[in-house]
């Protein structure tokens, strides 16, 4: 891959990964093999220990204390589906926001077509949410609140700590979509205290694991039905799904190779210190905002404040279709971005960019201020050509 690539699509998947991530995946394939929990030989046991190592790493980074309540899935979408379909029944009431990703909206809309009562709380045009607006929607039949921790469009961080206090007081399960925050910012709530909370995370973004990893951790008071039933390596004398955790939610063989990589990614983060990662991404956002202010016709959406957002920025250049901007950034300037609606039509409707969408930059710890400056030069050139024609 060309070393001059500027990869600003970390909100889709992070790249590059720390070297150890790839080394540990190779190590599993070459030296461990084995299927955890199925056999009793040393290779299976080594695989079991590797998976437990990955659970402990997730517990550490998400400030959680019970590895049996960490369920691995292939991505955050699967974890979110398990939670939504595992908790809600027709006739229940659920609350969510107007900036949720389709991994949340599509299951909820499907259940709505089957009788779920759904309240969608409107966020402001910068993607921010007043937690009191969630409180106002809570009613006796509310069975689940679902919120993204940070928007995949504008990066806006939502007030999950405040909402967690409302839901905890009322014993309502609270699902938090941490796809854009796990590994990027501290979770802000102590899951040990939030017994009604479920944190859904993905492994392949800020946790630096490979694709095919993700999961959730959940508090003791959360009761869910499984979505996938099958072989768990346990209770093999029964043909019904076991209740024991984590097996209840982990049927079939999990992505052991991927979890070896995920563990290495989290180890890297812990070694670097997530606070340092956060400060770096805030500097990148700040640099972009400063540079963008000098470009005529460049509009940034969202809070435009590094304190109020993760390392994600959506923008448009006036009169230029975002898909053209994305194409030119890629082909002429080797800058990778994501354009369009980002699997989130509702967030774009909320910020006023539907149906044209935006150009989205998603930063990681491996991006540099020099890369931001290069992007500013590219965008200035694009804006100049565009302004000449207009």
């Amino acid at each position, binding site marked *: 891959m060309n070393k001059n690539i500027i990869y600003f699509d970390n909100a889709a998947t992070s790249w590059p990964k720390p070297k150890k991530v790839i080394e540990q995946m190779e190590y599993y394939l070459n030296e461990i093999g084995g299927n*955890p*929990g*199925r*056999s*009793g*030989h040393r290779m*299976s*046991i080594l695989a*079991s*220990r590797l*998976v*437990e190592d990955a*659970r402990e790493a997730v517990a550490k980074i998400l400030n959680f204390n*019970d*590895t*049996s309540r960490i369920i691995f899935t292939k991505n955050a979408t699967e974890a979110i589906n398990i939670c939504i379909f595992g908790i809600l029944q027709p006739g229940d009431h659920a609350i969510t926001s107007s900036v949720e990703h389709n991994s949340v909206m599509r299951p909820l809309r499907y259940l709505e077509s089957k009788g779920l009562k759904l309240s969608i709380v409107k966020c402001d045009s910068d993607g921010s949410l007043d937690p009191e607006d969630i409180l106002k929607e809570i009613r006796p039949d509310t069975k689940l609140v679902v919120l993204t921790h940070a928007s995949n469009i504008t990066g806006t961080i939502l007030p999950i700590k405040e909402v967690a206090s409302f839901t905890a007081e009322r014993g309502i399960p609270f699902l938090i979509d941490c796809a854009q925050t796990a590994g990027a910012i501290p979770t802000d709530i102590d899951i040990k205290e939030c017994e009604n909370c479920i944190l859904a995370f993905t492994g392949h973004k800020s946790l630096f694991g490979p694709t095919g990893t993700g999961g959730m951790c959940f508090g003791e008071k959360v009761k869910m039905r499984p979505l996938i039933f099958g072989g*768990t*390596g*346990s*209770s*093999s*004398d029964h043909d019904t799904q*076991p209740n*024991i*955790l*984590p*097996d209840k939610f982990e049927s079939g063989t999990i992505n052991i190779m991927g979890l070896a990589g995920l563990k290495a990614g989290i180890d890297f983060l812990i070694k670097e210190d997530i606070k340092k990662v956060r400060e770096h991404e805030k500097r990148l956002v700040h640099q972009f905002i400063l540079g963008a202010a000098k470009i005529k016709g460049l509009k940034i959406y969202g809070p435009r404040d590094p304190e109020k957002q993760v390392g994600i920025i959506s923008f448009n250049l006036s009169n230029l279709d975002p898909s053209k901007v994305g194409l030119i950034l890629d082909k002429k300037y080797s800058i990778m971005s994501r354009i369009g609606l980002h699997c989130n039509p509702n967030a774009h409707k909320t910020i006023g960019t539907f149906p044209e969408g935006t150009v989205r930059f998603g930063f990681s710890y491996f991006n540099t201020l020099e890369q931001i400056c290069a992007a500013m030069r590219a965008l200035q050139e694009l804006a100049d050509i565009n302004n000449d024609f207009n």
Partner: protein
Amino acid sequence: MLDGVITFFASQQAVRAERLLLNNSHKAMLIPGPREISPNCGVALCFEFDKEKEIINLLNENKVIFERIHYYPEAKQISKWIE
């Protein structure tokens, strides 16, 4: 001498238990679950049976779910074979 066996409902609990015992200076060894006492789970944990009370407390304090504690003198034989 490893003459006790803890059986589990899930292998993840067995691995947690192994870690807990080893981190607390107890001897422990994961073995294939003996069929006559462990139909539920592929692995079981050998330990020193005379430390039974202490180990049960350790597992309970750390919310490790186990099926049963067995006195399993056959485990001594297994230890000898593999030494």
